[in-house]
Structures are given as structure tokens and as C-alpha cells.
């Protein structure tokens, strides 16, 4: 009898705890929720930064393509382009280490095109926070088609040097980068990604 009374007390107490959890949950729902495009774009940051090595094919004009590899180690990424250019990327700072032909555009554009995960992740994170602060989230993800794949286009940096990132609509994986400036637009496609070991 005594045991049954203890069991009943514990059971009722457990139900009470469930009620407390439900009330606490309800209290939290009074907080707003960021718009869905912001949540998706924030998730895409994680997906982009999962990669340690990214291989891209850059399209610089009709019939002109170059391959590039961006490999990350710690906070620094190294970009090696098919024509011998070598860059170091740390945060949003890009340093040309050598081999940049004079005809080519700014080193920052090169790093963007190379699909460096840390750089794109940082730019996207900043873009997400801007969208949240300004309340213009509805324009954050623009649905586009990229070949046979459904994608979103995100304008990472608006202005005279506009950098657009395209991500897969389902997996949020990055698909490519497009850079528009005063000259002709250039773009790149991500040909392969090697994820970092967790």
C-alpha cells in the first residue's frame, strides 16, 4: 500500500513536470521566429563551411575556363588557380602570394570564384545578419534553375562588385559563384568538395 502511494505520488509528480515543460515551451513560443529564408541561409553557412577542399571551374568568358582549388587549414585558406596564381585568404582579407597575371581581376574576386568555404561562409553570415537587421529577408533567396537543379541565388555583396552565391534548394550545398562588375560577368561552378573530418 505504501509503495503504491509512493508510485502514485511519483507518477502524478511526473505529470506535473510534463506540465511545467509544456508551460515553459509555451512561454518560449512568445519569442518571434526569424523568416524562413533567413533560417535556410543560416543553415547554408554550416553546409558551406563543412568543406575543407573545394574544386571549381571558373568561366572567364567564351571558351575561357580555368580550374581552381581552395584548401582550408585552420583560419587560413590557400587558393591555387590553374594559371599559376596563388592566394592566401584569412577572414575576408585576400593576399596575392604570386603568379597573378596583370590582365586578371582583383584577388578578392579570384578567391570568391574559387568557392573558398570560410570566405563564402563569412560573407553569407554577414548577409544573413544584414537581412535580419533590415527586415528584407523576403529577397534573400531568389529561386533560380542551375542546369537541371533547382537552386537559390543569394546576393552576398551588393554594389559595384556584386558577388552572387548559388546553393542547392534541397541540400543547401553551394553550386557556384557569379561576380558582376563593370566588366563582363564571370562565374564558377563547384566541381568537387572534400568535407572536413569531424
Amino acid at each position: 500500500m505504501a509503495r503504491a502511494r509512493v508510485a502514485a505520488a511519483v507518477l502524478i509528480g511526473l505529470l506535473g513536470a510534463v506540465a511545467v515543460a509544456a508551460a515553459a515551451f509555451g512561454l518560449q513560443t512568445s519569442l518571434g521566429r526569424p523568416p524562413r529564408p533567413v533560417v535556410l541561409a543560416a543553415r547554408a553557412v554550416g553546409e558551406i563551411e563543412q568543406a575543407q577542399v573545394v574544386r571549381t571551374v571558373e568561366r572567364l568568358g567564351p571558351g575561357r575556363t580555368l580550374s581552381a582549388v581552395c584548401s582550408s587549414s585552420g583560419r587560413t585558406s590557400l587558393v591555387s588557380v590553374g594559371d599559376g596564381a596563388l592566394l592566401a585568404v584569412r577572414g575576408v582579407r585576400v593576399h596575392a602570394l604570386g603568379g597573378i597575371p596583370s590582365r586578371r581581376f582583383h584577388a578578392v574576386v579570384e578567391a570568391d570564384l574559387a568557392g573558398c568555404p570560410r570566405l563564402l561562409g563569412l560573407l553569407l553570415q554577414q548577409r544573413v545578419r544584414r537581412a535580419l537587421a533590415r527586415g528584407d529577408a523576403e529577397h534573400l533567396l531568389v529561386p533560380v534553375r542551375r542546369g537541371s537543379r533547382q537552386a537559390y541565388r543569394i546576393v552576398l555583396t551588393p554594389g559595384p562588385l556584386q558577388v552572387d552565391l548559388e546553393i542547392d534548394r534541397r541540400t543547401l550545398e553551394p553550386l557556384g559563384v557569379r561576380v558582376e562588375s563593370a566588366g563582363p560577368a564571370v562565374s564558377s561552378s563547384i566541381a568537387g568538395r572534400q568535407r572536413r573530418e569531424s
Partner: protein
Amino acid sequence: MTASGESVTAAYPAPRTARAWVYELGAGRRAIVVAWILSRIVVLASAALVQVAGWPVRAGWRPGFGRHPFALLGIWDGHWYRAVADHGYLLVPGHRSDPAFFPLLPVLMRGLHGIGLSLNAGGLLLADLGFLAGLLALYELGREWLPEPDARRAAVLAAFFPFGFVFSMVYPEGLALAALALAGVWALRRRWLLCAACAAAAALARPQGVFVALPIAAAALAGWPELRLSERARAVTAVLAGPAALASVYAYYGWALGDPLAWSKAELGWGRSFAVSGVARSFRELGGVATHHHSAWLVRDVVFGVVYLACLVVAARGGVPRAWIVAGLAMVLLPLGSGSFTSDARFGLLALPVYFGLALLARDRRLYGLIRFASPALLAAGVVTIWLKSP
């Protein structure tokens, strides 16, 4: 007048004057309210001085005091709590993001914002009023185990505690202190549903709040044989309320962000991850203190950590129940599992027996005099250096 000619006004108490209310507080509570007022004057005046003087110089931060009063007290984590109150949680994997900040303060800030207060003003108001409630509850709790003068001294010393400037920042420590102490008071008075509400609030304010389940469980076990069935059920609810509230945070993150583990992932962005090896990493960090970028601040956290441990030992010897001591130890020591002593000075502020230990030490009149002399100065120094390092 009634039909029988009696005056109905006699049935109602006469309106109380403010003086009468203050008198009814009793000498102990009056001393605590005065200590709260004086200590907050020190904090607010120091914060105003920093803003008006523009020191320490911080590029891009020069809010005018007239337009942004006490903006200094809304920086660091205050920015994140305002962000949560403003637009809810957002997890940005691999980056610093706001699911690391628990929901009670932003929920209440949002509520006050709805009635016209700015988020910063609401946060400051909640922090300071929560702190006052916490001090009064700390006094009530202390009276359960210690002579009244010790309990009073504990609350007064807590008001002037050098790191207590955090209780006036847009941080949830003030609310958490009140919730923890009130949960303890209600548990001892066997008001289990009130206790459950306060324990849940403590866990929603700060993750360490969940440790109040230990002393509540001890109080429930101590009185268990005398409790009726309904009281036992309510006591079980009170014991489980903190963990249940913590579970609700996971559930909410799962619902709102699609990731129940968003808290742990956000902590990674802040450089914190809990592991058994974390304590060893914390001590390794100490080994490199001479070369550490913020070594002076790390030393500050370590010194406070040591003071907390010493006070817990004194409190244990002085008769504070073991369950409270264990909860206090967990609040001070478990954060070291994240691999750093950083912010341990702030985490330990919620270890309530620390203040009782300090009060017992301060039975020595010379030590009490020294503490009373040094604490306001250290409190002001803490405020002045807020910009140099996050608490």
C-alpha cells in the same frame, strides 16, 4: 453606512503610506533594500561616468548618455539577448549565434517592449529588480540556517559583491539569482508549486539554474515521511521542474530551428564545448597565462573561482546544507569542463552559499570592515573595465 448604521469603511485596511511600508519590511529587509540602492548607485554612476568621459576609448562606440543612458550596461551578451527578444533565435553553425543565450530574459524583455519600454531599458529594469528580489530571497533563505545577522550580512555583501555589476547589466543573472533563492525558500516552506515555478524560471534563465534541483530534492526527501500524497506529488514536480524546463529549451530549439542541439552547437561558435578533458584544458590554459592575450582577465576569473571555493568550504562548515554546497560547487566547477576559466567569475555569482560563506568569514569585524571598504571600489572598477573584457 449600512442599514444598521455601521460604517463599511472599517472593513478595509487604511491605505498604507510609503513610510509604513518601509517600516513593515523589518530592519533586516530595510538594510538589504538600502544596500541594493547604494550598490546600484555605485554601478549606475560608474557606468554614467564611463559614457560621459568616453573612457576606455573604443572605436565606433561613443553613445551619448542623453540618448542612450547606461548603454554600457547593455553591451556584450546584452546585444545577443536583445537580438533574441527582437527576432527570436537563429543558429548560424560554426559562428557565434544566439541559441547560447537562454530564453527567460529575452521573453520578459519582449513583454516589456510590448508595453513601450525599449529592449535595453527593459533588460536593465528586469536585471536590477530581479537582483533586489534575489537579495531579499537570499536573506530569507539564509535565515533558515544561520542567525539573522549572518543572513543579513550575506545579502548586504552580495549587493556590494565586486563582480555584482553583472546583476545590473542586460544579463539574466539578476533574475536567475531571484529564481534560485526563491525556489530554495519555497522548498523549505513546502510551497511546492511556487518552488516548481521558480526552479523552472531559474533553468530558463541560466543553464546552471537546473542545479537547484539538488537542494529541492534534499528538502523533499527530508520532509517526505510527513508529506501527504498530494504534497509528495507536488514535491516531485518541484524537483523535476528545473530539468523539465531545460528539456523544454531543447524541444523549443528543435521546433523553432529544426535542431534540438542548437545550444551545444552555438556554444561551439563561442569556443566552448563540454568534454571530460575540458577541465584539463582549463588548467593547461592557466599554464600559458603569461602569454595569454587576456591574461589579466583570466587571472581575475581564476581568483574569483578560488574565492568562491573557499567561501563554499566556509559555508559548508557553517551549517549550510550539503545539497546547496554541491549545487554551488557544480555552478563554479562544471563550466571548467568547457575548457576555460573564462567567465567563471560570472558563473559563480549564482552559487548562493558563497554569500553565506562570505558572511560567516565577515563575522570577524576587521575583515568585514575591509570588505565593506574595498567592495564598492572594486564594484566601480568592475564597471569601468566592462568594455575591456566581457564579464
